[in-house]
C-alpha cells in the first residue's frame, strides 16, 4: 500500500497524517514548464499551482495515496477541486481552517474541522488515529522543527544555497532522517567583499536555488527569512501535553501567519521589522510568485513599514525559475546600492 500523502501548504497538519500511518511529503514545483496543467488552470494562476498539478497529470506523483490541502488562497481553493475532479479515486481532502485567527471561536472551530479530517482519513483508509499515535507524531515533528531551528541559528556558517537545500529537503524527507542527520557543513563560498551584505528574504515559498546561488556569487548572506517552507514552518511547536488535536489547532492559530490569514492589521509588518532589526539586516528582498495575490496585497503595507525605518528593499517577481539575467541585474544593482550607501 502506498504510504505517502502529499501537501502543498504547511498549514496541513502533518502530525495527523503521520499518526494515520502515512508519511506527509510536501509537493514542490519543479523546473519543467507546465504543459498539462495549462489545460485546467488559466495563465494567471501561480506557478506553484500549475507546476505541482502538472507533475500529477504527468504521472510523477502516482506514488501518493492522497493529497491534502489547507484553505489558504483562492487559487489553491480552486485547485483542490480540480485535483479531485481529475483523480476521482484519489484521497483529496481540504482542511478548511479559519481565516480569522484572532476570532475567539477560531480555535474551537479548527478543532472540530481537524476531527472531521481525522474521521475522513480513518474512513477512507480504514485506519484508526489514536491519541497515543498523535502524541508520538507531535513529538517527532517537534524534534524536526527544533533541529531546523538550531540549524537556522547557525545559518551564518552556511552558504545561501546550503540553507536553501536544507530547508527544502526538510519537508520532503521523513522527519526521522532530518533528526538523525545533523546537516553537514560544507565550505561556504568565500564572500567576494569584506563586509558581506546581510539580506532578509520574504515570500510564499522558495523552490529553486537561482536566487540563493546569485546571492552566494555576489557575496551576500541570507540572515533570516519569512517563507512558508522556511522560518514560518518551525517557529512554533505543538504542545506535547493535553489533547493532541487541540494542541495542533493551537499551533495553527498562533504560528507566524501567512498573508492568507488575519491575525492583526499590522502583525506581519511588525514581525518583519523585528526580523530585520534582530538580525541587523542591510536590506529585504521580496521574493514573490507572479499571480500570488495574498503576498502582492501585503507588499505595499510591508514596504511602507520598511521605508519608515529607511530599510532598503527589492521586489523580485518570479515564475517557476527566476530568470538569471534579469534577476542578477536587479540583485547586483541592489547590492551596489547598499554598499555605496555603507
Amino acid at each position, binding site marked *: 500500500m502506498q504510504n505517502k500523502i502529499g501537501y502543498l501548504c504547511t498549514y496541513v497538519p502533518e502530525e495527523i497524517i503521520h499518526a494515520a500511518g502515512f508519511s506527509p511529503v510536501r509537493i514542490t514545483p519543479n523546473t519543467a514548464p507546465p504543459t498539462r496543467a*495549462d489545460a485546467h488552470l488559466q*495563465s494567471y494562476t501561480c506557478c506553484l499551482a500549475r507546476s505541482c498539478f502538472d507533475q500529477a497529470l504527468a504521472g510523477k506523483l502516482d506514488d501518493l495515496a492522497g493529497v491534502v490541502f489547507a484553505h489558504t488562497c483562492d487559487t489553491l481553493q480552486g485547485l483542490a477541486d480540480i485535483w479531485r475532479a481529475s483523480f476521482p479515486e484519489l484521497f483529496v481532502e481540504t482542511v478548511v481552517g479559519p481565516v480569522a485567527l484572532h476570532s475567539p471561536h477560531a480555535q474551537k472551530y479548527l478543532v472540530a474541522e481537524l476531527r472531521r479530517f481525522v474521521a475522513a482519513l480513518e474512513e477512507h483508509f480504514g485506519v484508526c488515529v489514536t491519541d497515543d499515535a498523535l502524541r508520538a507524531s507531535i513529538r517527532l515533528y517537534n524534534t524536526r522543527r527544533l533541529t531546523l531551528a538550531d540549524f537556522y541559528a547557525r545559518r551564518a556558517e552556511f552558504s545561501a544555497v546550503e540553507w536553501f537545500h536544507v530547508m527544502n529537503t526538510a519537508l520532503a524527507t521523513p522527519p526521522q532522517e532530518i533528526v538523525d542527520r545533523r546537516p553537514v557543513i560544507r565550505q561556504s563560498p568565500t564572500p567576494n567583499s569584506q563586509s558581506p551584505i546581510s539580506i532578509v528574504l520574504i515570500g510564499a515559498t522558495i523552490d529553486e536555488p537561482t536566487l540563493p546561488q546569485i546571492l552566494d556569487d555576489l557575496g551576500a548572506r541570507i540572515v533570516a527569512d519569512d517563507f512558508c517552507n522556511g522560518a514560518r514552518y518551525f517557529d512554533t511547536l505543538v504542545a506535547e501535553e493535553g489533547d493532541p488535536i487541540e494542541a495542533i489547532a493551537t499551533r495553527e492559530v498562533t504560528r507566524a501567519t501567512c498573508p492568507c490569514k488575519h491575525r492583526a492589521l499590522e502583525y506581519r509588518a511588525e514581525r518583519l521589522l523585528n526580523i530585520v532589526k534582530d538580525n541587523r539586516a542591510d536590506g529585504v528582498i521580496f521574493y514573490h510568485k*507572479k499571480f500570488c495575490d495574498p503576498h502582492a496585497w501585503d507588499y505595499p503595507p510591508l514596504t511602507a513599514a520598511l521605508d519608515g525605518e529607511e530599510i532598503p528593499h527589492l521586489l523580485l517577481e518570479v515564475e517557476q525559475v527566476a530568470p538569471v539575467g534579469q534577476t542578477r541585474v536587479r540583485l547586483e544593482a541592489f547590492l551596489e546600492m547598499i554598499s555605496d550607501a555603507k
Partner: protein
Amino acid sequence: MNTAGVDIGIKTTKVVLLNCDKIIARSCVLTGWKPQQAGESALTAALADARMARDDVTQIVATGAGRQAFSLAQRNVTEVTADARALALLHPQVRTVIDVGAEEARALKCTAGRMLDFAVNEKCAAGAGVFIETMARTLEVSLDEMGALSLQAVGAATLNSQCTVFAESEVVSLIHTQTPKAEIVRAVHDAIAGRVASLARRVGAEPEIALVGGIAHNIGFIDAVKRELAVDIIVPRDPEFIGALGAALIARES
C-alpha cells in the same frame, strides 16, 4: 465553378483558387499593414497565375486576422472554421488540428469538416510563429535553418517565462552564457510546442492530430510537438495554405 479563399494573416496573406475542389492557383504575399491591399495583390497574383479574370471567380471568402477588412469577399469566416473544412478534404481522419499562426496559436476539435470545439492561447501564455522568427533573428540563424539546427541539440535548455517577451530575454541570457545555438533553438521550439500541446489538450487532443500554418515546415518544431504529445503528427502539404483552402471550399458551398 471557381472560388477563392483569401487568408489575410498578421504576417502573410495567402490565396487559393479552386475549381470545384481542384486547386488551380495559389499565391502568398506579405501583409504589411494594409490588409485590403495585401488581399487584392495576392488575389491578382493568383488570378494571373491561373490566367483568369476576377469575374471568373464566382465566390470569394476571406479568413484570417484581416478577414473583415477585405471588401472583395462576399463573406468571411474564422481560421478555425476554415481549417476544419480544409482538413476534412485532405485528411478526413484528423480529429484535432493545431494551427500556429504568426501571433496566435489555436487548437480545434473537428469531425467531417465541422468544428466541435476550439481553444486559443491566453494572454500571458501566448506564443506562436513570430516568437520563433524573432528568436531566429536574435540568434542570427535563418528561419529555414532553425529546424535542422535544433535537431542537432545534445543537451536541452528550458525557457520558463510564460510571457514570450521575457522568454526572449531568457534567450538573450542563454546567448550570453554561451549556450550552444542548437540547444537554444531547441528550447525555443519546446517552449512553443508546450503551449500548443496544452491547447490541444483543452480540446481533448484526440488523434489523429494535424499541424498547420507556416511553422509546420519546421521539422524541429514538428519534432518538439511529437515529443510533447507523444503521438505522430500529420502535416498536410503546403500547411500555410490550409486556411485559404478552407475558405475557398466554404465559398464553394455558399
